[in-house]
């Protein structure tokens, strides 16, 4: 799990890769051409960044004729998520529901 987290972190340490990943996560599937227009770097550079993101399983590619489409795989972020704060909110809500259930239950 540590190795996976490190790979994801390294892939996202580069600001251009972060920008590419954020764009894919926000706007959905894109071609390399569309991403190149936005990234402000050459197409080979974008392709190289996409390769690193793909290695970290942060993006997936799909061939369609001569174009390759890329899409974000946000679940790859799971090792980095602050589970503790998510579960803090989750359990507090569940405690409330448990109390409601106890009020409905017979002694």
């Amino acid at each position, binding site marked *: *799990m*540590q*190795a*996976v*987290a*490190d790979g*994801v*972190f390294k892939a*996202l*340490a580069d600001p251009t890769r*972060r920008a590419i990943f*954020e764009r894919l*996560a*926000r706007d959905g599937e894109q071609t390399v051409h569309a991403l190149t227009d936005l990234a402000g770097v050459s197409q080979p550079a974008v392709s190289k960044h996409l390769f690193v993101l793909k290695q970290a399983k942060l993006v997936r590619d799909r061939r369609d004729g001569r174009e390759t489409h890329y899409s974000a*795989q*946000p*679940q790859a*972020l*799971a*090792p*980095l*998520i*602050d*589970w*503790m704060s*998510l*579960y*803090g*909110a*989750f*359990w*507090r*809500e*569940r*405690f409330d*529901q*448990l*109390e*409601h*259930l*106890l009020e409905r*239950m017979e*002694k």
Partner: protein
Amino acid sequence: MTNTATTRTLVIEREMPHPPEKIWRALTQSRLIEEWLMKNDFQPVVGHPFNFRANPVPNWNGIIDCEVLEVEPISRLSYSWGSMGLKSVVAWTLTPTEGGTHLRMEHSGFRSEEDAAYKGATWGWNKFIGSLEQVVAKLD
């Protein structure tokens, strides 16, 4: 090298105006657990593997993999809790009080905030964490 990072524990405690026996039932009877937590095939038997199941959503199958670790009737219950790469343990402790029960839940095994990779990566994830928070909030 990889196991040196310390982990954090989430603790929630509440005084409940109900006897421990009743709370124990809500924590250990599958049908009752479903009413306040999630669908499940829990059995109060040490070593029993089971799942909690929420509605699947994009990028999450809604399944939490668990195994019963401790069953001390009306006082202590714990199970492992694994989902999306999180390996953790949920432990319940019931202590009788004058007016009912002191219920304590410890959810342990969260990676430490001091972990460099973890800390660096918490930057700017609000958009994604926002949607994941909704995922967790909708675990019905």
